């Protein structure tokens, strides 16, 4: 804790008419730097003592409150008050009841003296010349050996932590013929959604009876937004003529920007908004990004309607879902 009125602009150092000297060889009686800042030290002392005493009482109050159930606000308020009182008391003690100063210490050149440098060189080269110059190849081999051990350590401490990506990012839990289910595991019938409605769906099998048994990776990768944009078939792009039966469109829910689940759908404009970084996608246009940082459209899941009228997937996504990665 410093006091700002003692800063560079005040002239209290020269004003003392004693040039600051080192703390050693001091004569405390005559030196104005050893005067106290407090005008009335006795009174200051009493005030500090009172603040410490109140803090002690507050700590006792904390114990009482703890026994009675420890209310967060009561405990925290008491603790804050007690520590602030201790702090104010200590700072006042250090500021008003100590020699007011200013004191000075001298500073010497940071680097070593020429003599010290010479002695070091004598010790290092003189005594160790053979070690340093003649046997340097030993050092190199030692370094190489240790380096190889370090390289080895990358295996157990990094490589073994998890599996390699292999093909994991190229497919999801959707398969040809996967029936579409809701987050509750119910099949989705073609009559279930009104135009303008949307929901999060998964392939059948990912949603289990108990959430405790669900595979989190499948849950993440296969999460899909099911939107009913119309009653007629929708073709979002050339080559996707059969992907949107009876106005149902399904897009990966994983944002192609940073992987957040896209959860906002605006029916009027037929847009999807990612709440993390506000990428906007056009539902009718193959989820092309029209705003924000997302660089790629959301992959579309080819849908079909089975003979019973339930929605199924024609196949898995035909491109990796989610944000870009090395080896895409």
């Amino acid at each position, binding site marked *: 804790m*410093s006091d700002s009125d003692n*800063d560079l602009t005040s002239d209290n150092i020269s004003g003392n008419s004693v040039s600051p000297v080192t703390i050693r060889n001091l004569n405390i009686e005559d030196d104005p730097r050893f005067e106290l800042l407090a005008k009335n030290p006795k009174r200051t002392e009493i005030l500090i003592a009172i603040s410490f005493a109140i803090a002690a009482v507050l700590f006792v109050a904390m114990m009482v409150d*703890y026994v009675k159930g420890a209310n967060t606000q009561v405990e925290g308020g008491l603790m804050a008050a007690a520590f602030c009182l201790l*702090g104010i008391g200590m700072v006042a003690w*250090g*500021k008003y009841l100590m020699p007011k100063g200013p004191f000075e210490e001298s500073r010497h050149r940071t680097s070593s003296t020429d003599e010290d440098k010479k002695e070091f060189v004598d010790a290092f080269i003189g005594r160790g010349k053979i070690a340093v110059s003649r046997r340097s190849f030993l050092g190199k081999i030692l370094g190489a050996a240790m380096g190889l051990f370090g390289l080895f350590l990358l295996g157990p401490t990094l490589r073994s932590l998890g599996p390699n990506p292999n093909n994991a990012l190229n497919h999801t839990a959707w398969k040809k013929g996967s029936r579409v289910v809701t987050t509750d595991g119910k099949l989705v019938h073609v009559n279930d959604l009104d135009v303008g409605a949307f929901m999060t769906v998964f392939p059948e099998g990912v949603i289990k009876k108990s959430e405790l048994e669900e595979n989190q990776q499948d849950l993440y990768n296969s999460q899909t937004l099911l939107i009913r944009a119309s009653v007629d078939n929708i073709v979002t792009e050339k080559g996707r003529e059969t992907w949107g039966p009876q106005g149902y469109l399904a897009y990966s829910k994983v944002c192609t920007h940073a*992987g957040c689940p896209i959860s906002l759908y605006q029916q009027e404009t037929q847009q999807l908004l990612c709440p993390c*970084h506000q990428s906007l996608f056009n539902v009718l246009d193959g989820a092309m990004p029209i705003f924000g940082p997302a660089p790629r459209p959301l992959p579309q899941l080819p849908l079909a309607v089975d003979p019973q009228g339930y929605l199924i997937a024609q196949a898995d996504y035909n491109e990796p879902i989610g*944000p870009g990665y*090395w080896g895409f």
Partner: protein
Amino acid sequence: MAKLDVTKLRDQNPKGKKTVNDQIANTAEWFDDRLGLAKGTRIFFNKIFPDHWSFMLGEIALYSFVVLLVTGIFLTLYYVPSASLMIYHGSYAPLRGTVVSAAYNSTVNLSLHVRFGLLVRQMHHWAADIFLGAIAVHMCRVFFTGAFRKPRELNWIVGVTLLILGIVEGFLGYSLPDDLISGTGLRIMFSVTESIPIVGTHLAFWIFGGNYPGDGSIIPRMFIAHVLLIPALLAALIGVHLALLVKQKHTQFPGPGKTEKNVVGTPMWPGFMFKTQGFMFLVVGVIALLGAFAQINPIWQYGQYLPYKVSYAVQPDWYMGWLDGALRIMPSWEFQYHSFIIPNQFFPSVLLPGIAFNIFIIWPFIEAKIKKDKTEHHLLERPRDNPVRTAIGAGALTFFFMLFAASATDVLANYLTISLNIVLWFFRIATYIIPFIVAAIAYRVCIELQRAGDAAGKRKRFNVVWRSDTGEYFTEKSPARSDDVDYLDGEPEESLELTPEVSKMVNEKADLIASDRNGSQESTDSNPEDLQQISRD
């Protein structure tokens, strides 16, 4: 052999009875016999701390780190670092019966069930935010005053490393509860790791134990990094930071009696030790106040993280805000060559911090190279003394602040009820323009302050215009006062062709005007007329 008589007070006890002071002396003697500490401790006691408020900023960081350690140890007694799923049966009714992870379950329990737990958890979170805030402000102080110059470049690098480690530590810390918000943050971190060229995808799979969200091992891994690895590094580097500070001694602002060869201020013993201990109590007090009354991260309201759920209008902790903002304002670019891709998120979240932190680290050397400065500096510069550095610093700060503000595009658009597109485009452009404007203004202010010299804040004498009986106009300076810029330059300039009487009258009137101006604004309107009155007389 002389006794280590640390208590001159012994004389006051003539009866020869053993006193507390004797015991202190004996204990000191015991340790000195084994460690030889007298000289070293004396040198330590003599260490001088300059009396300037800006030297407190680093202390805030130090003491919030102490709070973090103490509160963190408490939290480890209750937190369970496991992603295994279970059914919540705790005391918070809205969550009962839902499936949660052990990590989330234990965090909710230690918040709502363990006595004192919520206070400690909130203090821990607030202390982390204050820790990084204090580091950032302390770093600004060191930067703008040139305290990083030779011989302190190494300590600057240690400081930047502490900042980086602190940010990582903070991110890991708020990711541990496994709530809906932190889980989304983790997903973004997976994407960021994936985007690193060549090794990224593998790295992400290894660290998370498979494709996102992994096999659950990320929680215990983050935990051990958060409570052991990084705190140990932080503590060690803080030790190095302080050791270098003692070895190289403090810098100080220039002033009377202060030179490159000394340090003027309060000695470690007794003044500073008491003040700094008191300051630590105050830091604890303020953090306790925040922990008690300012709710932070109420994870029981957010709910357990589920891979397909997300919250709206969520921002990360403040020190991650600039990275989140950068992610938002990045144009939708991506560079692909066959299966080799530099994904969009690489630029704002890997490249940007990489460049920023590397510039921080090498800045002392850049500046020394440009200025061809190889000398030691122990006297600080005021920001105005080095306008270029101050301008660059102000511009950089503005850039980071703009990125930080950009992490609230959605909130701003809602709050101001304007289109999200406009807000985004504003930040996409302004983030790169406003820093230059601020830098130019900062440069200009520095130059003006330099010109003003010590006159900054003093009164400029105004000119009095008056008309003579014959219609001629004259000007003359108002009378000099002790708070005038040119007071020490001597008497005011001689006025033109004034008779002593008129000059006297004008001066009196001008003095009156001056005091009126200082006093009330209304009377200034009538002044010109008053002056005319004088001249007619």
